[in-house]
């Protein structure tokens, strides 16, 4: 699905990225770990760009992205936020609205389709953002710490939803704590300032000290 060869990148305002090689198979669900400032978001930005840097070979152009904070337009309804992509591409129709409503049902927000984005709780906003990712029918889904800022129980619910709904997609989950999604993810890669290492067994991170060792590049 994704092959990266000898990529080294820097964008203004983003931390530089070490030279990395990486490949992910279609349908894999992987975690990308790393301390702040090692270039995780730089890498995601490169994956979202069109055209991409020549070192990145991606089998699909259909990539969905879910940011750390649920990016919802507060004046639009939950439904319109889900189909924001269609609105911005000029593809809005009654059919897209139906799809959006069905997706809201699937993320557990039945009956909230007409509520304004600004009036949803943090957990509900995250669910809308997830529904928007699904709406895009992407083959590759990039999740940038989508559970950050949520309380523990909501995080568990969200991880459960992702596991259920993102079965067919290839998923890269950027996270600080892979335990949130350990029963769903298959492997983890750790990005440090020098290198990208992996795949690592997620079981190794059940212990805090092991997680810290991994983040420090010692595993």
């Amino acid at each position, binding site marked *: 699905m994704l092959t990266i060869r000898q990529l080294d990148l820097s964008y203004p305002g983003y931390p530089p990225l070490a030279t990395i090689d990486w490949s992910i198979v279609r349908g894999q669900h992987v975690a990308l770990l790393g301390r702040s400032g090692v270039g995780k978001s730089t890498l995601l930005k490169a994956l979202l760009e*069109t055209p991409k840097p020549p070192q990145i070979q991606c089998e699909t152009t259909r990539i969905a992205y879910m*940011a750390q904070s649920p*990016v919802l337009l507060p004046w639009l309804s939950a439904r319109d936020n889900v189909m924001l992509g269609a609105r911005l591409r000029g593809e809005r129709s009654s059919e897209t609205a139906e799809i959006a409503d069905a997706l809201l049902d699937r993320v557990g927000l039945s009956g909230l389709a007409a509520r304004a984005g600004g009036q949803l709780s943090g957990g509900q906003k995250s669910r809308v953002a997830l529904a928007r990712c699904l709406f895009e029918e992407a083959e590759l889904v990039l999740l940038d710490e989508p559970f950050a800022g949520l309380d523990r129980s909501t995080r568990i619910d969200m991880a459960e939803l992702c596991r259920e709904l993102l079965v067919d997609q290839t998923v890269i989950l950027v996270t600080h704590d892979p335990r949130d999604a350990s029963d769903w993810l298959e492997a983890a890669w750790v990005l440090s300032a020098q290198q990208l290492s992996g795949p690592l067994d997620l079981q190794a991170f059940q212990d805090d000290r092991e997680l810290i060792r991994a983040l420090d590049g010692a595993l």
Partner: protein
Amino acid sequence: MIRVLRGLITTAILLTLWAGIVWIFDLPHYILPGPERVISVLWTRPELFVHHALITAAEISAGLALGGIFGLAVACLIADSPRLQRWTMPALVISQALPVFALAPILMLWLGYGFASKLAMTTLIVFFPVTAATLSGFRALPSSWSDTITALRGQRLRIFWQVRFPLALPFAGSGLRIAASVAPIGAVVGEWMGSAGGLGYLMLHANGRGQTDVLFAALVVLCGLALLIWGITNHLTRSLNRYQAFD
């Protein structure tokens, strides 16, 4: 209710201080008339002050509207082009750095002594805070937002009108609130330079005739008018905060 009470108390304290100064220093009324004289002239000739206040109010409101629209339009035009910003910013800054007093005679020469020259001066004062605030709104988009929008592969124009423009509106609103507090300067300076009506004209006229009480009364009315216009602007622009999505 508390706000009204606070306003009344502040006014009472100021009036007492004012009366006290006149009484202690035994000032002649043509230097500093006591509050009772000013209130009495306001009471006996309300039509005079209403007439001139309406002219000034029209100049300020029209200037705010025109400057607001103009400021917003300029910000939208240059928002996406750092190069255009580099070219236009010096001109915009100069338009603010030159005191409106210095430009007034030129504007009088071009636009005459009527409404147009006052409108131009007020617009000139108003548009820059609006442009600057709106531009900072366009720039304030967090990277998580721009990355999310990029991933949706939308059309440029649709992204602008459906996402970026509304998100910049609360910033434009705060620019307009700042502008509303300085807008009366443009109108009054314009009236001083040459006019046949307005509170600035009334002040100049009264000053020439030694009617210090009328001069002070016009000043009091101008203060009230400035507060009223600021209050209305404040109220109207608050509704833009529904487009507030991030701090």
